[in-house]
């Protein structure tokens, strides 16, 4: 069965796709041979004068825009997204419902809970990947219940649609406020038709894909029992949910904290992207075919940008450098010596291009930080084009007028705290007065309904 696609540009400038079969990702040499065979059927000894170079090198083929993708991979997770997040009794979020689209912009005054939404997603991801216990740092420890409430139970619900399979994950955390101790009270993964997983009172019950009862096992209330379920042929729906959560990236870029040297690859970008070089190293190794797209995009937006190098500087250690070519002079700068804004720009375009087609969901806190004014809208346009296509979903938080005016009319949600302390969510256009004014201007005037 053909399982790989080789995309390339023909001599006449047309785009061509060839299918090929290979157990592993074909190398560029293999792809080059495949193209050569397809373009030049019959004996391969062809006079150069008739057909040009009969044996194009990989470098020449790269110039043709060669790209290798697994069949189906380009659309992997395309239709997987979070439809709704519900949070109760977590910091300033009380009985809080958040509907999400393919691309959503969260807007609102400071302290209303925008970043809390990202913190919840970050914590759920860490918990569900077994990276942290319930009371761990930045998870659901004793400091996280709402201060003006006395209730001891936190509730989190996540409605996701994974290729038209609608699932609901529900987590209840029981807090003992005086001692600041917490444990999982219950954890469930369900569909409309029935359960896939249930945990309560120290015991977890597995269900098969058809909801028939499966294995039962004891579990600790301090960590997610769901995270410990290994993949099996009869729990593919549960496994797909965990895989989906693995591909949620929650990040607020802090470029001054980016480490320039990478000691190892890291598949997980941390909350402030301080391990960006490790993550880039991993992603660019995993999907070398996407690096040329990233380089092309950065050349469009960053004057003189030529490429990124990961130079070996020690045993297993590589230093990330940015190569520029200005006025015919090529030079390279270590990541720590390029500006914060350039680092942020490189990271933002990396998030768009190196995750493409792999089912990643992006939650980004104030992505406009550090960018020059002229750099913001082109990135937003690229993101809006990618969402629902190469990236299933993105959620942004921002105060910036460029984001508010570009995304606000169709994708903006305004978070507002009511007198009761509850944060409510409304479409931005409906929630602001001053028709005819730019949305950012309405927000600047505080003309929220």
């Amino acid at each position, binding site marked *: 069965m053909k399982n790989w696609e080789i995309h390339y540009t023909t001599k006449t400038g047309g785009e061509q796709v060839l299918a090929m079969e290979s157990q592993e990702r074909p190398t560029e040499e293999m792809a080059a041979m495949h193209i050569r065979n397809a373009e030049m059927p019959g004996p391969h000894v062809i006079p150069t004068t008739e057909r040009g170079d009969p044996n194009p090198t990989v470098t020449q083929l790269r110039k043709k825009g060669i790209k290798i993708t697994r069949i189906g991979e380009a659309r992997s997770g395309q239709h997987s997204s979070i439809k709704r997040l519900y949070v109760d009794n977590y910091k300033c979020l009380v009985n809080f419902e958040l509907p999400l689209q393919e691309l959503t912009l969260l807007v609102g005054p400071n302290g209303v809970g925008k970043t809390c939404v990202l913190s919840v997603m970050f914590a759920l991801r860490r918990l569900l990947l077994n990276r942290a216990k319930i009371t761990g740092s930045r998870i659901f420890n004793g400091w996280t219940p709402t201060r003006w409430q006395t209730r001891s139970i936190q509730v989190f619900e996540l409605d996701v649609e994974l290729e038209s399979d609608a699932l609901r994950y529900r987590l209840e955390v029981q807090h003992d406020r005086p001692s600041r101790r917490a444990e999982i009270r219950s954890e469930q993964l369900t569909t409309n038709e029935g359960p896939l997983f249930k945990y309560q009172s120290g015991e977890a019950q597995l269900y098969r894909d058809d909801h028939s009862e499966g294995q039962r096992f004891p579990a600790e209330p301090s960590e997610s029992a769901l995270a410990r379920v290994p993949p099996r042929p009869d729990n593919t729906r549960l496994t797909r949910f965990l895989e989906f959560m693995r591909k949620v990236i929650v990040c607020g870029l802090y470029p001054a904290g980016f480490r320039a040297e990478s000691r190892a690859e890291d598949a997980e970008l941390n909350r402030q992207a301080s391990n960006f070089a490790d993550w880039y190293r991993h992603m660019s190794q995993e999907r070398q075919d996407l690096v040329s797209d990233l380089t092309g995009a950065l050349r*469009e937006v*960053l004057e003189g940008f030529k490429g990124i190098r990961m130079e070996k500087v020690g045993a297993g250690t590589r230093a990330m450098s940015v190569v520029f070519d200005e006025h015919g002079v090529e030079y390279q700068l270590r990541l720590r010596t390029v500006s914060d804004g350039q680092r942020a720009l490189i990271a933002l375009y990396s998030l768009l291009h190196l995750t493409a087609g792999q089912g990643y969901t992006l939650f980004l806190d104030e992505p406009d930080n550090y960018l020059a004014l*002229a750099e913001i*809208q082109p990135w937003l*346009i690229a993101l*809006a084009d990618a969402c629902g296509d190469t990236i299933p979903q993105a959620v942004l938080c921002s105060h910036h007028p460029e984001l508010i005016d570009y995304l606000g*009319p169709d994708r903006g949600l305004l978070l507002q705290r009511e007198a009761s302390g509850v944060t409510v969510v409304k479409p931005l*256009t409906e929630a602001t007065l001053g028709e*005819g004014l730019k*949305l950012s201007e309405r927000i600047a005037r505080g003309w929220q309904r």
Partner: protein
Amino acid sequence: MSRRVRLVLLCEDVQQETFARRFLKRAITQVEILRVERAPGKGAAEQFVRERFPPELRAHRSSRIPLVVLIDGDKRGVLHRLAALDQACRSADVPPRRDGDRVLIAVPTWNIETWLAYLNGAAVDEGKKDYPRLDRPRDCQRHVDCLYDMCRQRALRQPSPPSLDAACDEYRSRLKQ
């Protein structure tokens, strides 16, 4: 240092923007960096474009960066909208669009959905306003590809909407180099 904007797009809504931007990306090289000015939400979008046009035209004349404008014809049609934009310029003491200006004005009539229906193979009537919206604006890629192919052959499928004919003429005379 960031790149300079190479084209300015002034339009009413996200569907117009997505359609125009994707067409321009296919038809013209080096328009990755463009600036979008879009009406701020529902209502008065036509007024937004009309009011933004004079300063954008003035900016075009000083920068020489091409300007692409999309404004719905509604029941008024192409000539009325062009006249209204000229009038808006005169009111703002800006000389109306001249032959040498690289300023394309497209007036989808009744609206962009009329063009999308035509590009989807339907026979359309510009006097009707109820052609269906796409579920998602980005679903217009196949419509863009269809228009691009017809443009390359310089032959819109007949009968074509007159407002699309006019826009193609504008594209050839104002923008294409």
